[in-house]
């Protein structure tokens, strides 16, 4: 507990970021209890209702409560954002590490495939993948995670290439340490900083990619709400007439990205012993 207080005092911004993320996660878990109304029930008379007492953040075209949809939408949006970022960064890190450390033909193949993947826009890649896997939550996560892999792999590979030349890696060879152990003990921990920065930066774009996929009918199927879809469905038509349909999902996405960035920065500093004193 005293450790926690100490950390909270050292990283107040990180604490704020962590609290924001925690609130959203709790919101997603207890959506059934927190949400004031059913997110799927339509009400023709409340179509595009402005924020008021019944519909605190307004209602959409079909008269569904925006607040309740936001609360329930946290489930899909967070699952997609965190799931895709974790899977994409994890696999990308592994590939980048092997690619940079082992080199040779493995590196050559991985880098060429990464280039091919990077030449296609994220959305097009995800489209092709979901189209072949079919729409569902898990497939959406996979579809968004795969295009992230090459970005992460390339950054980590570049980092590994420079780390590999450092004296402490050479010293580890000189004491007879195996390559696997050197990679795990001396190289991998030193790639954490760029990995965390990269992962937190990707978080926002995964939410938006999910929105585009859902908008095209290839993401999580209707009528389940996600922030991305709430935003993309109404951005074009209702920005002027019912701005609350655009603003509130946008605020939710920004808040999660903001929280993740603050938390990620603090985590990076905490894991770096040089920032210790």
């Amino acid at each position: 507990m005293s450790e926690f207080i100490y950390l909270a005092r050292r990283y107040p911004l990180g604490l704020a970021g962590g609290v924001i993320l925690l609130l959203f996660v709790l919101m997603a878990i207890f959506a059934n209890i927190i949400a004031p109304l059913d997110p799927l029930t339509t009400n023709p008379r409340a179509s595009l209702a402005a924020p008021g007492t019944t519909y605190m953040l307004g209602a959409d075209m079909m008269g569904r409560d925006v607040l309740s949809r936001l609360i329930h939408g946290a489930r899909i949006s967070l699952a997609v954002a965190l799931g895709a970022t974790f899977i994409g960064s994890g696999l990308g890190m592994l590939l980048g590490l092997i690619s940079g450390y082992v080199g040779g033909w493995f590196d050559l193949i991985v880098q060429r495939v990464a280039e091919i993947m990077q030449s296609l826009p994220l959305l097009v890649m995800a489209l092709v993948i979901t189209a072949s896997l079919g729409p569902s939550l898990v497939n959406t996560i996979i579809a968004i995670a795969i295009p992230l892999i090459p970005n992460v792999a390339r950054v980590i590979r570049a980092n590994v290439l420079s780390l590999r030349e450092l004296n402490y890696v050479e010293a580890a060879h000189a004491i007879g340490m195996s390559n696997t152990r050197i990679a795990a003990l001396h190289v991998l921990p030193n790639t954490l900083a760029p990995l965390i920065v990269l992962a937190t930066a990707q978080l926002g774009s995964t939410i938006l990619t999910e929105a585009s996929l859902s908008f095209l009918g290839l993401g999580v199927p209707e009528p389940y709400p996600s922030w991305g879809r709430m935003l993309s469905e109404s951005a074009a038509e209702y920005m002027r007439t019912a701005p609350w349909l655009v603003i509130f999902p946008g605020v939710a996405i920004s808040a999660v990205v903001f929280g993740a960035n603050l938390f990620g920065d603090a985590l990076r500093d905490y894991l770096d012993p040089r920032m210790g004193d």
Partner: protein
Amino acid sequence: MLLEVNDLRKYFPGRGGFFGKTPDPVHAIDGVSFAIQEGKTLGLVGESGCGKSTVGRSILRLIEPTAGTIRFEGTDITRMPSKEMRNLRKRMQIVFQDPYSSLNPRRRAGDIVAEPLLVHGVENRTERRAKTQALFERVGLRAAQMDLYPHQFSGGQRQRISIARALALGPKLIVADEPVSALDVSVQAQVINLMMDLQEQEKLSYLFISHNLAVVEHVSHQVAVMYLGRIVEYAATKRIFERPLHPYTQALMAAVPMPDPANRRRKQHLGGDVPSPVNRPKGCHFHPRCPLAQERCRVEDPMPREVEAGHQVACHLV
């Protein structure tokens, strides 16, 4: 002999090369031979880029040599498979120049020093801790500093950690690659004294790589002077400092600043730079900069000759 190196060569593949033309290789080491006795120090001197560090790394097989033989305690290790090599690594270690990049910033000093023990099967935690503590004290650090991270130490202390790591497995030979060049002069003396004390206690041998002649004179029993991948002069320390024979060695010695302002020698400066190891001059590699160069030096490559007992020089004019 603890270590015998014979005609060691290392050519790095060149870069570039157009239209399938094989690029010229970099001749980093071009036929180097020397030997180190048990408990003795060989100083390896030369300008930067002459291949001294490559020699040090090749001996430990951190770089695979292109040709030549390396015999350690009588065994040829030049082509030894890496599995067998692993056991030998206990007996030969390295200390680097840069005290910053030689320690992993994310690991505690104690773990860094204990790592060789862990790799070579000292499984018991308490035993490892006790040994690490003893190593810390031997290199003049306090046991309480084991839990600190590298950035919390000064350059000299970091070099002591490196030395403790190298000592952990009880080696016979330590390749010291410019171990004090990055340190303040006062700290240099401390680290050198530590290394010399350890040599006496442990019967250690050093390959002491440096460009600092004063330091080399102080620590070495024998000195080899390198120029562009070759040894140009090789003799006992006293002899080479009293009577340098090769024009390059003479020029190096003349360039050492004298601490005595009354004793102003006429300095003979070398013009030009070290030529590229890709496009080496024909004949004697040193002839474009040599004040005494003759026609013969431009054509014919001088072989190392024993001019006096135990004093080898590669120069036509000696």
